[in-house]
């Protein structure tokens, strides 16, 4: 009984085990990462030179739309849920997630939801082509028929996310081992608790938005139609009320990851634990009152522009606290630079660049120039790729020994890191310049003057894409024939999962709760 687990396909289909479910989430997100990534390759191939080369504009629009949707809902979010499943029960001393069967349902909805979404490519009129933000009336009056399946796909993803979030919150509130008080929890648990709260608050609003789209499309309602007394801008308000917290949903768990890894390789305690918790909570609360900074150019009253500008810039304060704390953790530490640490340090630096361009975009008058240019694309890719995705990657390298009992090869890991680091900057840094010079996003052709920057970005993107295939080989090689790991492969690592659980972690952990002093 000790480590008995079911075998065969039923193990995965019927599972109630948080580790199995975490594994499935992580693999699913990687598959989606490759699918969404290949769409990015099509985009960058088309943009390699001005003029139209490979795809027609409508296909290009489908590529940008589906790339965004798949990366946000299929790659980044599930990867974070996968980490949550693997780590939260082990980090708080729980035997599993609080509601294990619902946990499995949350996962299995996703492959079906994305099947539905991807089926839209086969439908007459093609896949959704209105951008991942699906603004009305592009997504209502002028959208292809497949939009209806996109709507139901989003509903399914929402159901999955809400159930996943409920599971995380209940697990954290109800399943902690005796002595594991809230302010003793690892920061990854804290950031996920707050993320789960955001998910529960905003995913239903997204469901409301797509439902209004559906009824506007087919049942004659006028939510986003001014002729009936509605307003297309209302769609943007509802969407971004979801959308802004959503970007923190994608990044907060990554904050938690680097807050675990940096202390481990600095061999110091995290600097300012309590301020980290309060900063995360402040970022989350502020995220509810800043949404209209995505819509400065839409014609809002000046009072609205001012309010959303100032509220947005306030977010820089707690974010600055976090960056300060990460740096202060490293200050005078005994640093070593294993792969997870490299990804984490790059996270801090590059995320900060993305944060700074965010502050630039937050200024309403300046945003009038930047809006819908490649500067925005550069900004959010800096927080998403070297932010969220480097965070997940660091987590995979760091906890891989705990999951599989084997260590990733350091040499290959460092290759993966340095190539990613070079290519991610080569891809996204030039976009700042083409954006400032006025190159609009989501357009397949561009002025000759942007050719140099786009060529660089495309070369970087192809390299970045290839390097992620290297990551796949590293993971497979580790799982199959990696070097066996000792119980604690990182001497500075702390936490229940390293101190009280064998490596690799047995199928069931903490049948009886550990005591935390």
């Amino acid at each position, binding site marked *: 009984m000790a480590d008995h687990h*079911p075998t065969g396909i039923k*193990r995965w*289909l*019927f599972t*109630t085990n948080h580790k199995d479910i975490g594994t499935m989430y992580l693999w699913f997100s990687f598959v989606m990462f490759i699918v969404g990534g290949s769409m990015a390759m099509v985009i960058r191939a088309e943009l390699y030179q001005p003029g139209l080369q490979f795809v027609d504009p409508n296909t290009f629009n489908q590529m940008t739309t589906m790339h965004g949707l798949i990366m946000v809902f299929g790659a980044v979010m599930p990867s974070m849920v996968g980490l949550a499943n693997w780590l939260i029960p082990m980090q708080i001393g729980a*035997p*599993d997630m*609080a509601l294990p*069967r*619902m946990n*499995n*349902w949350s996962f*299995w*909805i996703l492959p*079906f939801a994305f*099947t*539905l979404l991807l089926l839209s490519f086969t*439908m007459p009129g093609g896949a959704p082509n209105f951008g991942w933000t699906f603004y009305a009336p592009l997504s209502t009056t002028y959208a292809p*028929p497949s939009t*209806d*399946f996109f709507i*139901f*796909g989003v509903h*399914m993803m929402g*159901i999955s996310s*809400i159930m996943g*979030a*409920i599971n995380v*919150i*209940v697990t954290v*509130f109800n399943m902690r081992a*005796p002595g594991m008080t809230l302010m003793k929890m690892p920061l990854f648990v804290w950031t996920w608790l707050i993320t789960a709260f955001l998910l*529960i*608050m*905003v*995913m*239903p*609003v997204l*469901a*409301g938005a797509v439902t*209004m789209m*559906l009824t506007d499309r*087919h*049942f*004659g*309602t*006028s*939510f986003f139609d*001014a*002729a*009936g*007394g*509605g*307003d297309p801008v*209302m769609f943007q*308000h*509802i969407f971004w*009320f979801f959308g802004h917290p959503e970007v923190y949903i994608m990044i907060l768990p990554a904050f938690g990851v680097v807050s675990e890894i940096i202390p481990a390789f600095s061999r110091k305690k995290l600097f300012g634990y309590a301020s980290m918790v309060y900063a995360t909570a402040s970022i989350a609360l502020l995220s509810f009152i800043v949404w209209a900074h995505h819509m400065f150019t839409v014609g809002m009253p000046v009072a609205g522009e001012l309010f959303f500008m100032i509220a947005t810039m306030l977010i820089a304060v707690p974010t600055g606290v976090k960056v300060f704390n990460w740096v202060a953790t490293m200050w005078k530490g005994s640093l070593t630079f294993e792969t997870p640490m490299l990804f984490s340090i790059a996270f801090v630096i590059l995320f900060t660049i993305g944060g700074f361009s965010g502050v630039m975009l937050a200024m309403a008058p300046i945003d009038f120039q930047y809006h819908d240019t490649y500067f925005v694309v550069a900004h959010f890719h800096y927080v998403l790729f070297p932010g969220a995705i480097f965070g997940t990657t660091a987590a995979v390298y760091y906890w891989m020994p705990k999951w599989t009992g084997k260590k990733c090869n350091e040499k290959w890991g460092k290759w993966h890191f340095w190539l990613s680091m070079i290519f991610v900057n080569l891809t996204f840094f030039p976009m700042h310049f083409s954006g400032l010079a006025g190159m609009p996003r989501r357009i397949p052709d561009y002025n000759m003057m942007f050719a140099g920057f786009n060529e660089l970005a495309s070369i970087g993107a192809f390299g970045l894409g290839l390097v992620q295939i290297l990551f796949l080989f590293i993971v497979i090689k580790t799982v199959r024939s990696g070097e066996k790991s000792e119980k604690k492969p990182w001497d500075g690592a702390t936490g229940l999962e390293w101190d009280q659980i064998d490596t690799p972690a047995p199928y069931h952990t903490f049948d*009886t*709760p550990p005591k935390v002093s």
Partner: protein
Amino acid sequence: MSTETKEKYEKYYVPEQSPWPIVGAIGLFLLAFGAGNFIQQSTDKVASNDGSWGWLFLALGLAIIVYMLWSWWKDAIRESKQGLYSAQMDRSFKQGMMWFITSEVMFFAAFFGGLFYARALVMPWLAGEGNNAMTHAILWPEFVAQWPMIVTPAGETTEGMGAWGLPAINTLILLTSSWTLTIAHHALKDGNRNALINYTAISAALGIIFLALQVLEYHHAYNEMGLTLGSGIYGSTFFMLTGFHGFHVTIGTIFLIVMTIRCAGGDFTAKNHFAYEAGAWYWHFVDVVWLFLFIFVYIM
């Protein structure tokens, strides 16, 4: 200390493998695929999709989901009766239900937000307020800001739904049902089985009456008032808010009927009755949503 810890943290039951989650995922997929096709095929707006088979997938998906929920809850009830569920497990269920209701509140918040935004900002802007004089003058110079918006900018006309007829009666009905359900809940805690069954049944019956009256109201709106989903933003918000609320009342009523049957069958004890409590919370939630509806959709 150690015995106390043991009691407080008795072993948490991690359930056996279960087929229902994957069955539920397949059911949801069929439901979504069927609904998309059914809507396209039946509303005649999508020329490329002219079949008439969408409803088959819709019905199949729905049937699978009902079967899945039935079986999943049957397993849970059996496990509960076997004594597998600890006090800690009970707390997991309760907290899970509370956060689920929170998410439901936010779903309604999206539609209330739409109502407030359309009424407080969009309507005056369309009528020329602020810097929108030219919007008004060029697009719809005839448009007058008034709520209910009985004439849309495009000229669609309707009537406004009054608050003090049927809707007021329905408010009374729902409030009464919340009260009778609370009586039933106390009866359960006091071990008074007859009162429990009777008052739960009365609450469910009030839910059915509410729904019947709402059907009458909709019938009246569509056939005599010309108030439809297509009546501009007033009709859109009116029917979507009251409609989704009515859908939730339907779910809640089914919940209460099942609870009545389970109470009659001898289920639940004074201490152990999570499902009943969840049903009661859900019912109070739809009740509170209705109060907001009554104020913001009907009265104001």
